[in-house]
């Protein structure tokens, strides 16, 4: 498979870097705490979603601010099929991802058929995500505002059951890792394929691409299909990792924005940027939460003080600094300094 030629893009330095990174990731459960593993799992999950989002904006120039929609419909459908009909997620993932793709195609069709571009396309994605969030609020069959829960028995936490996605936190951690790397390999081969070049042409100058006979409608649709499909896979993972789904916490616009922050910080349009962004933002956010808890419990700051919004505030600050000083993101800048990658497409 082409995607696994990733090593060919890397300099020797980059290969060593990647190996070290992989070694740390793979060995992590053996020397860290269960808390760190849960943070790392969410980090990898967001790395998958960041790549999915980057595929649309970074590759094809389509701004989505409704990615939570694709994650959410897939998560809800897979969870519903499992909890009500007993259909294991290994099968349920197919209709779930298909539903996410159909949502993407619907938005794409409306947006591209009627030439809704740029920020108006983003508004369309927000509108659909909100529409579905409010609808799910009122759908009693999947719990409405009360939420949809997956049964977890004591034994589930110990074994490894990939068919039903029940098991030890380590299982979810390694599964997220495999999915994140498969996504990376997939995105790489897409970017290096003809499709990747068509996307680049459309992103850089849509009129010129159209003048050359590139079927802009079709290739934009492909971008949405791949992106929503990946988000759908992540959605199934999310449902079975969290075991509880609420309309607000699944479809809320905060979720969609959270997905976009990683790639923006890491580097929109690059392959490794979204992964790097996730590994910067998630641990930073969690670290802050921990720090605040620690400071509260040790009495350095008043335990009653309300600092709930601090994480978001710091994230906002980080994003603002990145946009101001490294608008292309951290990865392109880091790569220039360290020379990990032979030729990362911008």
């Amino acid at each position: 498979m082409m995607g696994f030629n990733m090593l060919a893009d890397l300099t020797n330095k980059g290969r060593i870097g990647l190996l070290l990174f992989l070694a740390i990731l793979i060995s992590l459960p053996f020397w860290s705490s269960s808390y760190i593993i849960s943070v790392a799992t969410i980090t990898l999950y967001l790395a998958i979603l960041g790549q999915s989002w980057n595929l649309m904006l970074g590759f094809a120039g389509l701004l989505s601010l409704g990615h939570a929609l694709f994650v959410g419909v897939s998560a809800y459908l897979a969870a519903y099929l499992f909890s009500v009909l007993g259909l294991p997620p290994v099968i349920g993932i197919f209709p779930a991802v298909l539903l996410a793709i159909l949502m993407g195609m619907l938005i794409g069709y409306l947006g591209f058929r009627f030439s809704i571009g740029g920020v108006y396309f983003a508004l369309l994605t927000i509108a659909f995500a909100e529409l579905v969030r409010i609808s799910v609020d009122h759908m009693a069959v999947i719990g409405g505002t009360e939420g949809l829960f997956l049964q977890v028995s004591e034994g589930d936490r110990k074994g490894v059951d990939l068919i039903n996605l029940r098991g030890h936190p380590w299982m979810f951690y390694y599964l997220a890792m495999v999915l994140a790397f498969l996504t990376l390999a997939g995105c790489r081969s897409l970017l290096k394929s003809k499709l990747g070049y068509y996307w680049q042409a459309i992103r850089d100058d849509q009129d010129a691409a159209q003048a050359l006979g590139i079927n802009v409608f079709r290739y934009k649709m492909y971008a949405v299909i791949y992106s929503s499909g990946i988000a759908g896979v992540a959605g199934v993972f999310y449902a079975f990792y969290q075991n509880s789904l609420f309309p607000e916490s699944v479809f809320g616009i905060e979720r969609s924005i959270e997905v976009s922050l990683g790639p923006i910080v890491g580097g929109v349009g690059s392959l490794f940027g979204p992964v790097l962004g996730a590994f910067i933002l998630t641990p930073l956010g969690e670290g802050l939460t921990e720090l605040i808890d620690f400071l509260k419990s040790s009495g350095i700051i008043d335990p009653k003080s309300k600092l709930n919004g601090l994480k978001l505030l710091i994230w906002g600050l980080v994003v603002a600094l990145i946009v101001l000083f490294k608008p292309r993101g951290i990865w392109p800048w880091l790569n220039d300094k360290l020379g990990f990658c032979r030729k990362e497409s911008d």
Partner: protein
Amino acid sequence: MLKVQDVDLYYGDAQALEDINLHVEEGEIIAIVGANGAGKTSMIKAIAGIHTPSKGSITFRDNDITRLQSSAICELGIGQVAEGRQIFPAMTVRENLEMGAVIKRARAKETETLDRVFEMYPILKERQTQAAGTLSGGEQQMLAIGRCLMGQPDLIMFDEPSLGLAPAIVQEVFRTIHQLNDAGLTIILVEQNVAVSLKLANRAYVLENGRMTLEGSGEELLHDDRVRQAYMGL
């Protein structure tokens, strides 16, 4: 070869073209002259399928192309060199050229066409691995023309090909257009450089406020008082 009949084009409520009639025969060079905002670019976009007329029809070699998608129109053999060159700056020169050959009719002979383009413009061969954004204005225009040729069109529409170029390069561009015509290509030339384009053209149309107001051979229009006054400052 190409026939535009009674075409109206609107952008929202604003009318850009009104009752346009135009025909192009195989092997001709047609010039379309007119002031800024007269509708020249709109006409090219209507023919290319980027905008759809609200009335009238456009036929190309017995195919009704009025409502076809732009990619399908390219497949039939209509290419364009758009205003402002519109190259992809981050791609290499070579990749830009390959982008020109994405349509089916061009794929089979891609390598041969590429050789021909390199023969025509050796500088593009020299710079093929360079990012296109680093080329000079004149080289970018060569690239835009070369990229259009990669699609193996039979009819090329040039939109303001001399815009923003140094005089020596403008001459080079017009020479190229002449050579392409000699080689059998049909040309529609939209130009602000009225004197040169009328000299080059077999026939020409004058466009004013979205309407065709004059039509004639290049020679006739060149000596028409109205044209001389309005567009050549004579």
